[in-house]
């Protein structure tokens, strides 16, 4: 059954021109299967909140589909579409942080990521989670986009809306800081019996 069939016929029949989406369903399904996991990882790691990441990921895709240019973006290449998706997600994260809240995201626990895994995974998780939690949200974004997603400085500037010239310095500072935290934490863990 195609997805369009699920739409009530009466409503769909009233304004057929409105129902036209600027993207094919199968193309979107393929794009989604390739981009959803990295996007969720980015949102979950930067926000430290998997539930929020889930919501923001869905909203990102909705906005992506409702925009006037998803097909054009895919025609430019999936890399451009994915970058656009990350930009939407970044803006949603920023909007979320700007909203008044009862608690800061820095205070949220990291045990969401305490899923059972291999020893190497658990070790990496135990080290990166607390270190990342000590970083500012913007630094987390920059670090994730650069070192987890492998985006260039120019691409990071496009996603975050920051000046391209300042990305290098901001990233250098953030990397220096988190590297210090990682070393400190690994030293502390090494001392523990």
């Amino acid at each position, binding site marked *: 059954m195609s*997805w*369009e069939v*699920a*739409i009530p016929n009466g*409503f769909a029949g009233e*304004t057929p021109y*409105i*129902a036209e*989406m600027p993207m094919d*369903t199968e193309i*979107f*399904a393929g794009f*989604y*299967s390739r981009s*959803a*996991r*990295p996007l*969720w*990882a980015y949102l*979950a*790691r930067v926000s430290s909140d998997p539930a929020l990441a*889930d919501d923001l990921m*869905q909203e990102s*895709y*909705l906005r992506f*589909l*409702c925009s006037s240019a998803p097909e054009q973006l895919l025609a430019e290449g999936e890399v451009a579409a994915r970058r656009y998706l990350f930009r939407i997600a970044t803006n949603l994260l920023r909007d979320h942080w700007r909203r008044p809240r009862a608690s800061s995201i820095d205070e949220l626990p990291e045990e969401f*990521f305490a*899923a059972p*895994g291999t020893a*190497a*995974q658990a070790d*990496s*998780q135990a*080290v*990166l989670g607390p*270190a*990342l939690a000590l970083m500012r949200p913007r630094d987390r974004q920059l*670090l*994730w986009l650069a*070192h*987890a*997603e*492998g985006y260039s400085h120019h691409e990071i500037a496009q996603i975050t809306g920051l000046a391209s010239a300042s990305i*290098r*310095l901001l990233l*250098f*500072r953030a*990397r*220096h800081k*988190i*590297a210090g935290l*990682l*070393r400190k934490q690994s030293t502390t863990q090494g001392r523990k019996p």
Partner: protein
Amino acid sequence: MILRSCAHEKEVAALLASGAWPHAVASDLQAHAAACRTCADLVLVSKAFQAARARSTAAAPLHSPGTLWWRAQLRRRNAAVERVGKPLLGAQIFALVLNLLLVAGFLVAQARSGLSWLPWLQQLPQSALLYIQGFIASTDFTSASSLAVLIPALATLAILSGVLVYFASEKN
């Protein structure tokens, strides 16, 4: 903080991104990365983030793309309906203003003509049936000026009532 760049930074970053580090890397570059603070930070952070990415992507909960597609379609439709509705509201307001002007014009015209139907209205409680012919005679429907006023007035009332009914149904 001083931005210290290293000549090998790009090379190290490319090897890390391709997954070649450390197995497919020359020993002298590995030795450099161990000694250079910038490259050491790059290696440490990149490996930590790559491991975190692998773990997080594996744990990512995926939803049905069909559901997302359906929701996006509904959102687009709602937005389109809202866009279409805006000029309609403007047209309704314009029609209402026009009707009010017509009513005002009608009242002014009646006031100038001396309200010839007022005596009939005063006598109406006595007997509506007896004086109905008197009303017809006093309004003088045959004269062109009265018809010119009466027809737009009736049309105005009809349109006004239609607008009122529409607003009432909209609220419901």
